[in-house]
């Protein structure tokens, strides 16, 4: 693992322990529910956009499997019903800010389109807990970025001409309307969808990313905009820069109407795809 990941995990692991132990979660979803679809990602060598002064240009990822779609309102609603500790009126403020699920009070829960929209307004702690309930975890930034580099035809589509603008347009396509229901996007080569929509997705190690901007971290030599720019190998990839800059400014209890998540699982040795 890289230095960046090692640094990030020092921040992330204690928080994970807090979140899980505080909530005493049941580790799996109930048998009657439809298990969410995951697809195997074989991993491999990868040049991250975060490469540069913050770590080696290249990272090596082990195989993992990732949720096809981000977690939806409907799925998170079921989770909250099964784990009432995560209800808005019961969750401890230290694990979820006042913005947690703030939009739900005015939501038409019977509406299928609402249920199929990606859930947002979820704190990092709540996202961790949800993934644990699915026997999964949050992806690392590198895992998320590895999958996000693909398109429908290739594993690494980042050099495809015009792609930067296509991704930016997807972020702004909805204007100020809520994000479209999941499943609308085209599946990539792994069969995974909707990574580039208007919703940022939590990663397990977001706190250690350059970007720099977390106000509450003491170890923030990289707080300025200049540090963020220097921390990115590809300064033209604005779609990823926007995600990284937004996530890195957040505290784990923060909830934003533009931040959701999806989960990943490890893959048993030997079944790790090709």
């Amino acid at each position, binding site marked *: 693992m890289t230095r960046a990941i090692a640094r990030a995990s020092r921040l992330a692991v204690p928080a994970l322990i807090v979140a899980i132990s505080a909530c005493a979660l049941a580790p799996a979803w109930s048998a009657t529910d439809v298990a969410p679809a995951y697809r195997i990602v074989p991993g491999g060598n990868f040049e991250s956009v975060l490469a540069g002064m913050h770590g080696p240009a290249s990272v090596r990822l082990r195989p993992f499997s990732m949720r096809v779609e981000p977690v939806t309102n409907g799925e998170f609603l079921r989770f909250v019903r099964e784990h009432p500790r995560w209800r808005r009126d019961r969750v401890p403020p230290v694990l979820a800010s*006042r*913005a947690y699920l703030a939009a739900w009070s005015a939501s038409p829960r019977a509406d299928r389109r609402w249920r199929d929209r990606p859930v947002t307004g979820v704190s990092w702690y709540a996202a961790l807990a949800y993934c644990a309930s699915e026997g999964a975890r949050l992806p690392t930034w590198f895992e998320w970025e590895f999958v996000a580099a693909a398109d429908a035809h290739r594993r690494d589509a980042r050099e495809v001409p015009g792609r930067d603008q296509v991704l930016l347009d997807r972020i702004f396509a909805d204007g100020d309307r809520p994000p479209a229901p999941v499943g609308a996007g085209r599946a990539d080569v792994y069969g995974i969808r909707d990574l580039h929509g208007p919703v940022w997705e939590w990663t397990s190690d977001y706190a250690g990313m350059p970007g720099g*901007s977390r*106000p509450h971290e003491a170890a923030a030599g990289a707080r300025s905009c200049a540090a963020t*720019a220097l921390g990115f190998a590809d300064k033209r990839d*604005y779609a990823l820069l*926007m995600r990284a800059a937004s996530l890195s*400014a957040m505290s784990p209890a923060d909830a*934003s109407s*533009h931040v959701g998540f999806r989960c990943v699982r490890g893959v048993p040795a030997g079944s790790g795809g090709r």
Partner: protein
Amino acid sequence: MANSKSSMAAVFATTVGILLVTATAVVRAAQDHGKPVARRGTPIEERLVPPPAVPPPIHRDHPARVIVRLETREIVRQIADGVRYTFWTFNGSVPGPLIRVREGDTVELHLKNDASSRMAHNIDMHAVMGPGGGAAATVTPPGRESVFSFKALRSGLFIYHCATAPVPMHIANGMYGLILVEPPGGLPKVDHEYYVVQGDFYLSGGYHEPGLQTFDMQKLLLEQPTYVLFNGREGSMTGPRALTASVGDHVRLFVGDGGPNLASSFHVIGGIFDDVNVEGGTLVNHHVQTTLIPPGGASIVELELPVPGTFLMVDHAITRAFMQGALGEIRVTGPPQPQIYDHVSGGEPVPAGAAAASGPLDAMADGRRVFNQICSACHQGNAMGLPGAFPPLAMSDFLNAAPKRAIGIVLHGLSGRITVNSTGYESVMPALGAQLSDEEIAHVLTFVLNNFNNRGGHIDPSEVRAVRAGGPGQ
């Protein structure tokens, strides 16, 4: 009268300029103005107003603790008529409000990020002496608030802007404004103060392409904006939103350039800047026609407006004014001042040659004369009009749809909103019935209908006579 007022103002400004330099030297020696007096009492809450308005002068003889509250909001609104864009703003406006404090004040800045924001935001204030201008201290995720304080040690006019990654995108989406740090004696009194900030905008669609447009990365990199605008919207200060003054007024403009890429060659057509605080600092220059304002810079300009009329504020890299929107208006009302400005004569008809002696050609030549003499002042010599201010007569769907309607408009004038070639206009066309004969109106309309790619047609003087007889209600 106006002249003596002007020279007195100049002397006063020069005196203040000298005082200002002296004051700055004192600051450098002392490094501080001591503890803010108001710290022992109640801090002052800054009352912010949206552009182009400016908070009133300070008139305080001591430094204070001033609380400034800014909120970052991401909003979809029109950048030009029928064209929508996602702006990122301070307090919902582009530019953000002008902040006005006094040298020596301790400013307590509260930066709130609206809960519905997509991005984290912060502020780099050029009036701050400290790392990042406050950028690191103010990184604020959606739904949070940051507070930091700084002492305003140097007077001047300074830009503030968001400095969160990707910085060029935050600025290109409108996240900038100005902070004025008044010198201890304040600024000389003027009749009006206004606030103008230029910015360049990069949209996926072309100029005036309607609908919701997104940010275009390639145009940003090539520094080829779709719009160059004052105060973030085409027509922000034209027509009914024009800046106003009376004949003889002294007007001060706080002008900034947010960028991200283009410098502004700021000019007021028909005006001369009596005083310019060059680059927003303490150096005062006089009698300036066009002042250069770099991105991330600002300038205080002051001008006397001794005659009535409409004065256009432009970026004199003039393509931007006429093709990309960098245009505002100052409307000056009051009695004519022929001793200063007088239209003696002009646009005399060119004697027609022997071949042009027939009736229709005479009418056409007369129509051209009237057009050049009167209509072109607003509708421009090429009849293309001015975006956001004056509608085009060229290829005009409004004109061609009902050519005879134009008779009444020329005779009696027109005000209120009209739509020409899918662009809305809200200007005032003056009534010309008193100064033009029936023949002249018929000729100029016929000339316009048969030129500028219009569809042709003929207006007879008898038709004008009939409409005139019918009165304005027709």
